[in-house]
């Protein structure tokens, strides 16, 4: 078999694996969330479709597909059509740079368990998460509805604000790992994960990531009891489904970013690397759900206040302190 064919097949297999994993992961994330939230509220959650409600995502998908695809009159049709796609595709694309396991040996060659090990993986992630804002904003803008517009305005300002602190929380990680490549960052955490070496950055990143995912307590863009459903008020059927799936893929992506950047990726004792990676991602995803079950929604001014007056200055101070410490530790390299 020629070399290029093996490479292509390997890439396709990896792509299929990741695609399948992300989509089923997102679908079952919905089920897990509904179940866990139910248990937190002393309910059972969905348990009618299939054993333990395990076929619920399938039933939901069938329902969403068979729903009427409604377009509001005077909506901007083109933007209305592509907005959910942007939301879902940017979420999916981000996983391309996430290394989900240590390199394995297949057909006598080293296969890294990452679709594309970009040397600027961190920037790629930040760029795509900025692009994801467009899906939300354009969706709300094109809907020709006041609630949707309010939701998208909120989403826009919230995501931009928290992207700043998120980026600033990554800077110490890049400083410590001396690389923008996510694989190198994971390898730099072979000893101690950065969450222990730099807990302030970890906490800032965690909070910013919660805000980035537009979920409780930062779900102002879709605050149900204020603005109906925010940016996706006018969406129905599979278009709403795309927003929905995008949100849950985003949760998985952000959880894996937390894992890769701060929890040491696939590094861990005893178990194989890929198991460790998914355990950590699962734990952070559980943290997302747990938070949703626990905290109330912030007020809008509190959200902005918290982002700009607390998180960003903290992150800036953290960057300076981390840089200074690194410089003191090995002045030769600095």
């Amino acid at each position, binding site marked *: 078999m020629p070399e290029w064919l093996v490479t292509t097949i390997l890439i396709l297999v990896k792509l299929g694996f990741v695609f399948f994993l992300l989509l089923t992961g997102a679908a079952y994330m919905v089920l897990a969330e509904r179940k*866990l939230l*139910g*248990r*937190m*509220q*002393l*309910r*059972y959650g969905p348990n009618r479709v299939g054993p333990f409600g395990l076929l619920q995502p399938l039933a939901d998908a069938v329902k969403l597909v068979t729903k009427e695809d409604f377009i509001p009159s005077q909506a901007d049709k083109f933007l209305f059509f592509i907005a959910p796609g942007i939301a879902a595709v940017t979420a999916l694309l981000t996983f391309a740079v996430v290394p989900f396991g240590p390199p394995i040996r297949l057909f006598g060659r080293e296969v890294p368990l990452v679709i594309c090990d970009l040397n600027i993986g961190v920037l790629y992630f930040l760029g795509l998460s900025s692009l994801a804002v467009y899906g939300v904003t354009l969706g709300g803008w094109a809907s020709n509805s006041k609630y949707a517009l309010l939701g998208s305005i909120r989403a826009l300002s919230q995501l931009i604000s928290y992207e700043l602190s998120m980026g600033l929380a990554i800077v110490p990680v890049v400083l410590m790992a001396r690389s923008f490549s996510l694989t190198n960052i994971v390898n730099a955490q072979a000893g101690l994960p950065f969450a222990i070496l730099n807990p302030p950055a970890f906490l800032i990143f965690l909070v910013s990531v919660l805000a980035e995912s537009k979920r409780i307590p930062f779900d102002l863009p879709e605050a149900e009891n204020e603005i109906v459903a925010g940016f996706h008020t006018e969406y129905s059927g599979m278009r709403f489904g795309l927003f929905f799936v995008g949100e849950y893929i985003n949760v998985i992506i952000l959880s894996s970013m937390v894992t890769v950047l701060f929890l040491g990726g696939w590094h861990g004792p005893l178990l194989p690397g890929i198991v460790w990676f998914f355990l950590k991602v699962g734990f952070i995803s559980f943290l997302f759900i*747990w*938070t949703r*079950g*626990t*905290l109330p929604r912030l007020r809008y001014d509190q959200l902005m206040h918290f982002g700009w007056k607390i998180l960003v200055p903290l992150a800036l101070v953290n960057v300076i302190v981390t840089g200074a410490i690194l410089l003191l530790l090995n002045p030769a390299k600095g």
Partner: protein
Amino acid sequence: MNLYQDIKATAQAYWITLRNMFRKPVTIQYPEQKRVPFERYRARIVLTRDPDGGERCVACYLCSAACPVDCISMQAAEAEDGRRYATWFRINFTRCIFCGMCTEACPTRAIQMTADYEICRRDPLTLVYEKEDLLIDGPGKEPDYNFYRHAGIGVVNPRGQGEEERPPADVRSLLP
């Protein structure tokens, strides 16, 4: 300190939700598990019979008048022996709010409420109950009560021979 309080409160909130996750849900899973209603639970209405097997309802229209949603209707008639009855009696359960006013108004304990709460149908018209759907065989609550034994209108017993009745006074004997 304020920050300390905030962190403590947040941690407590997380602890409570985590603890609740391992508690038994309070949900009653309806079709499999059924809730046992309380003794005086008010649900589906029935028409009872007196201990002798006759219909208790005397078609006095009091339930119908008391009903706040006007779900009871009937047509009164009188039998040969002076016993009043309803030729037809209809309760529309799509309207009934199970308030119990009809049972309170009923002078003969004919209309009573049962604990049967499972009345939902796909076709609302099947919820319009006629007299034969409403009548049950037993006396329900107050099993010994028979209106005509106390009424003194001479249906069960001749006039003046009811249970708490003295024979009618001969007016002429009272003359001075």
